[in-house]
């Protein structure tokens, strides 16, 4: 627990206690992450192969190894509130190479799940939910793509909900079951008015 010194606000912010204390760690976090990700997250020995493999790491401050460390130590707040959590491309390179046979990608997915439960999620992810709800696609087809498909001798629309819009309803049913759309609409509204 960060110790406050009682300085004026600006100074307090500058000199804030950066230590981590035992109480900062939630002993329930690691078991939760493991249950959702179904991977042996506690076995990470911090070799860094994951970050070394990650295409996101050289282009950002995102460090998958850092999230693994937070999982092991139970630093839930820190992990879930870090905007870097959303920079994983889900390429699974780290999962391919981890020497302890952990799936770091799935650890990230588990943390995103837990973050969403606390309404922590970037708006663009929510807009993806809305797009899927309305079209069955996270990235719906557009005219540029359609032209490209034609040139390649394909149908203008792929054989998905684009070609068979009657199935969008089924997708909506699934999303409604998990209240995904409702939550997305609510949060977008709160943020964007």
């Amino acid at each position, binding site marked *: 627990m960060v110790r406050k010194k009682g300085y004026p606000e600006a100074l307090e912010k500058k000199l804030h206690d*950066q*230590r*981590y*204390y*035992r109480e900062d760690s939630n002993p329930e976090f690691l078991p939760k992450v493991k249950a959702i990700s179904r991977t*042996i997250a*506690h*076995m990470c*020995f*911090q070799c860094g192969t994951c970050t070394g493999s990650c295409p996101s790491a050289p282009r950002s401050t995102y460090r998958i*190894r*850092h999230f693994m*460390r*937070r999982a*092991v*130590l139970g*630093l839930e707040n820190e992990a879930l509130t870090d905007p870097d959590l959303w920079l994983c491309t889900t390429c699974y390179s780290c999962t391919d190479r981890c020497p302890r046979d952990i799936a770091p990608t799935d650890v990230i997915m588990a943390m995103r799940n837990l973050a969403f439960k606390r309404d922590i999620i970037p708006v663009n992810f929510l807009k993806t939910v809305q797009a899927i709800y309305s079209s069955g696609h996270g990235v719906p087809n557009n005219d540029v793509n359609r032209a490209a498909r034609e040139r390649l001798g394909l149908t203008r629309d792929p054989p998905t909900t684009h070609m068979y819009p009657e199935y969008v309803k089924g997708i909506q049913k699934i999303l409604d079951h998990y209240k995904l759309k409702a939550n997305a609409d609510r949060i977008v509204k709160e943020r964007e008015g």
Partner: protein
Amino acid sequence: MAEKKKASTKKTEAKKQEVKHEAPVKQEAPVKMEAKTQAPAKVPVTTGPKVKPRIGVFICHCGTNIAGSIDIKAVEAYAKTLPYVVHADNYQYICSTPGQKKITDAIKEQKLTGTVVAACSPRLHEPTFRTATKEGGLNPFRFEMANIREQNAWVHMHDKEAATEKAKDAVRIAVAKASLLQDLTPKTVSVEKAAMVVGAGIAGMQAALDLAAAGIKTYLIEKSPSIGGRMSQLDKTFPTLDCSQCILTPKMVDVGRSPNIELMTYCDVESVEGFIGNFDVTIRKKARGVLSMPEAEAKGIVGGGCNGCGDCEPVCPVIKPNPFEMGMKPRKAIYIYHPQVVPLLYTIDWDSCVKCGLCVTACGEKKAIDLEQKDEFVKVKVGTAILATGFDLFPIEKKTEWGYKTYENVVTSLEFERLICASGPTSGHLIRPSDGETPKRVAFVLCAGSRDNAGIGKPYCSRFCCMYSLKHAHQIYEKIPGVASYLFYMDIRSFGKMYEEFYYRIQDEGAKFIRGRVANILEDPATKNLHVYADDTLLNRPVDMEVDLVVLAAAVQPGWDTDRTRKLFGVSCSSDGWLLEAHPKLNPCGTTTAGVFIAGVCQGPKDIPDTVSSAEGAASAASIPIHKGEVELEPYFAMCIEEKCAGCGMCVNLCPYSALALVEKDGRKVMEVTEAKCKGCGTCGGFCPGGAIWMNHFATPQIVAQIDAFFLGGER
């Protein structure tokens, strides 16, 4: 001496070398000496008919090790210009079979009288090239080595020209000596069919058991009242987690039972005289105050002596801390460390005994207790000896930042072993010393005092603390439900067989690893909890971890009496105090003193598997001279040129090995050398004012020729 005067006159010429070559003494025909009745060296006689020296020079490339910094061809061409050199050659690796064949062939074809190899250090390959010289038909001592690798190529790699000149100097000097070398024959001495092992931890016990099994009478000397060493204090052993006592006790019993082992506990080595094959060792039998059954019988007390019944202990009024339990359990002034001691014999601590005599009464008819017993001295003769004196924990309170001995809930790893052990002071219930509560959060401080160059700690890695800290974490998970463990580490060194797997297992059990050396520890005075401060270098954040108990994986250091003991046996130590092996890779059990070997942690930190391997290695090495029955001594001993000896006797006191004496011969006093004792150090030879001492293989004319060759040149 005459030669010296001539030699130092002017530029060397072949003629004068001829004169010098006539060394005034020749070694005697081989003699086999009995250790006790060594035949003294006979009066040296002059050499027979002169032979003009014919020297062969062989220059080694050592791959590019030498050839990379020295112009081999130039050195070879130069060698051919030197006096007496009739043959010069070079090769990639002279130590290889074809390289050695060049030497043997040249000796035969060129009728060489001496060989010179310019290559690496004689420490490495002198024996190799001596053998090659012998195989060519020459006496092996007709060989001389010029070190142009360690002392030249490796240090002058940036100056090829100067390095080449220096190599020429080295070859010229070696040739000058080789021209004067004489045939020498190593002497042999017989070897006593007995061995000694000092220290009866697992290393000493294993070595003694092996020697005994090989049919060798073995004296096992242990300074404390029981054998077993540190291993008997451990609860379980990594990585298999077998109970330490369970695997150790049978071995202790075997040691006590073996007819070939003479177990001498509560004894110190007092003095050592002699040399390989014939060490005369005096043992101090410290007064134990208690007679064993055989001792009682020898004193005519029929059916008496200590049978370990323990009747004495309850009546003793004096209570002291038991060092075996790290002071956490009481013992009396008459005590045994623990119930499994071997031998099962009580001991009196004279510093605390008040001589009330209650124990004597309690012992009754067994008459085992002698409150007036005095130390005794016993002399034994052995052929070889093994030192296995083990280790102590570094006094970790010296690192004040961790608060050992200041904060009650900071304990050492050995204290932890006793606290978690079912036979320990708490019957295996781990407690916080401050309040007896079961700790729920335990921090382990690895590298406590190891890998520390700040002067107070130890620069080396103590090598088993990573592994036993993992074991300790396992032990608390096993015994305390819901406990949390934090291992503060710099690296986890889990190098042995099944060790990395053990590390995996302990992490899987829930141990938390925090990579960062503990900076300091502070106590909360109200709760006696401890705040451990470190940097989680993987998270890049400082840590303040509040825990109930801290265990310091303290560094280890040589046992406190090791230094005195090693000096008695003439064994060196490295700068950190661990006993020095003859070669760190190729001779880790040997020492530079022939016939003395080292085993276990006294050579450097080792876990039990490595300790046992080193003990078996030392036992095997120590048994070789005993099984051979005789050993060869380097024929580098001093000889007296009796016609020059004035009998002043000044050399006698100078000799550090007491190898010299004055004797009556033909009505006058002359010096005499006990060759087996002489180590060839040359102290006497350098000193003798009359020049009456001839140092075989390092004789004055030989050395003068080398100096002349260096200063005056010697090219034809």
